[in-house]
């Protein structure tokens, strides 16, 4: 797959002098054509800055943003404006024009390119059908619910037949049910219209629900990047673990033994691992935490196990678990730290 958007060595610093804040540091991400790519991070991680660097609402200090291999940063303002019709955006607070009806809002980007009124209206009506709100054509934003507003915003973003749709915390102001419906709509748009979708969020569920690949952004740095199932089933970095296990574990309450993370890599039914470990090896392990996630229809589970204090027993247990099929084992260093 060829990348449609490539971010290369992006860096961005805000403020000057002593109050400098590095929002992005050497970010490299390639988004492939036709995928739904997620960028997740806690607040302040630089997600919003990063997504604004893609359409250059925010200009990076260093690096390149390539769209179909062409560097957007080298373009004149006029050329860039033309490209922005191919990379559109939706927002957390919808940002509709309050003094225009839904239909007029969807017509807005068409007006900008000088589409004849009649034609623009026809196209806008089609788009309202696409997002399932043709009956709200003459309603003003104030008369719409949050979910409806976001649908209108999506219709507006689709008006110029974009290739990429950027979603900046697009579901963060919506309730869980509306969030799911909105994500479903984005998925349909991705499948049916072939629009590449880039989703910025702080919410794991959003990523799990529709993204194929994900990048974890932490303090302006890409901590992990890969398939959602890989990254979420076995986060390799501290930043990743903080996101996947946000509540953490009260470490001081646990026995100070060696701790391992066991991941069931989907596809197979869970083996009764702990029971068989006790029967086959006679070793009792302590379950410190367990979690299962449904990612893309497959079941993934992770378990945190505290090994026995006796070193031989611990080694036996470790060897036994490692030998099992479809299970990945990883030692968790500094667990008690």
């Amino acid at each position: 797959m060829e990348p449609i958007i490539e971010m290369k060595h992006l860096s961005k610093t805000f403020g000057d002098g002593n109050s400098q804040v590095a929002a992005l540091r050497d970010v490299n991400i390639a988004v492939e054509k036709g995928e739904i790519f997620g960028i997740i991070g806690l607040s302040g991680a630089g997600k919003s800055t990063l997504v604004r660097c893609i359409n250059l609402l925010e200009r990076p200090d260093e690096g390149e943003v390539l769209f179909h291999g062409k560097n957007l940063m080298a373009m004149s303002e006029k050329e860039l404006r033309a490209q922005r019709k191919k990379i559109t955006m939706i927002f957390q607070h919808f940002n509709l024009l309050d003094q225009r009806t839904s239909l007029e809002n969807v017509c807005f980007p068409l007006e900008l390119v000088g589409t004849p009124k009649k034609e623009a209206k026809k196209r806008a009506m089609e788009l309202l059908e696409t997002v399932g709100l043709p009956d709200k054509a003459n309603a003003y934003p104030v008369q719409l619910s949050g979910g409806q507003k976001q649908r209108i915003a999506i219709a507006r973003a689709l008006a110029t037949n974009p290739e990429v749709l950027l979603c900046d915390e697009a579901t963060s102001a919506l309730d869980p049910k509306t969030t799911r419906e909105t994500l479903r709509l984005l998925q349909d748009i991705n499948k049916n219209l072939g629009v590449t979708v880039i989703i910025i969020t702080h919410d794991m569920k959003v990523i799990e629900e529709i993204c194929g690949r994900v990048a974890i952004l932490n303090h302006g740095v890409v901590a992990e990047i890969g398939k959602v199932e890989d990254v979420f089933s076995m986060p390799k970095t501290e930043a990743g673990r903080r996101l996947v296990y946000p509540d953490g574990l009260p470490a001081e309450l646990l026995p100070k033994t060696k701790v391992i993370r066991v991941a069931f890599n989907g596809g197979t039914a869970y083996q009764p691992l702990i029971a068989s470990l006790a029967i086959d090896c006679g070793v009792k392990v302590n379950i410190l935490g367990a979690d299962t996630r449904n990612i893309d229809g497959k079941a993934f589970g992770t378990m945190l196990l505290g090994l026995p204090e006796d070193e031989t027993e611990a080694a036996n247990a470790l060897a036994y678990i490692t030998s099992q099929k479809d299970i990945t084992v990883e030692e968790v260093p500094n667990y008690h730290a």
Partner: protein
Amino acid sequence: MLESLTAFFESLGVSKAAEQVEFLLDPSNIPFAIWETLYAPLIATVLAYVIGLPLGILLVTGEEGGIRPLPKGVMSVLNTVINLLRSIPFLILMVMVFPLSRLILGTAIGTTATIVPLTVAAAPYVARLVEASLREMDRGVIEAAQSMGCSTWQIITKVLLPECKPSLINGATNATITILGYGAMAGNIGGGGLGAISLMRGYGRSQTLVLYVAVIILVILVQVIQSIGTALCVKTDKRITKNSKKGE
């Protein structure tokens, strides 16, 4: 009627009642004064918007972090000039712009001549009013427009001005009323109108009845302008739903 009104006011203790009632009832006096009161300030308001609206837009779009930042020097000159003009009391400004009035209109006195000082005084005020209205604009909406490839001109004409229309109408109502108030001082440079009548006749010749009638008509004029402005503002603002318009 003249006699009965005169008798009525005399009974209330109004001195020189006959003379005043006669003046007030003469159909060429009060209606003409109302016309004079309105026409110079209204023309001045329109002219003040011709100058002040672009200036107000510049104040918002040209600032640091605005949609089309201008050099800092340009912005500080603009701000200083506006503040300077706004700090000169109108009574003094009126006299100061005599040369300008003569240059443009050939005369510095009379009702028409007041259009010049009124415009000079109102334009910077209008610029600030426009600035305040445009600052209410949600940054996010402008960002959305930029993300759709809007040019600066398109943002101004298709986003800023239409979205801020209700607030701009409010501002224009305020401007009109303020300029109407300035216009009442026009009597000092030979202009006419209700203001001049209340000053010259009412105060100058102690014709209390004329004074009160002129002031009451001014109050009514302001009320009417305010009501029209508010009604227009509410009618244009699509953020107000039908239900809240009815006060439900």
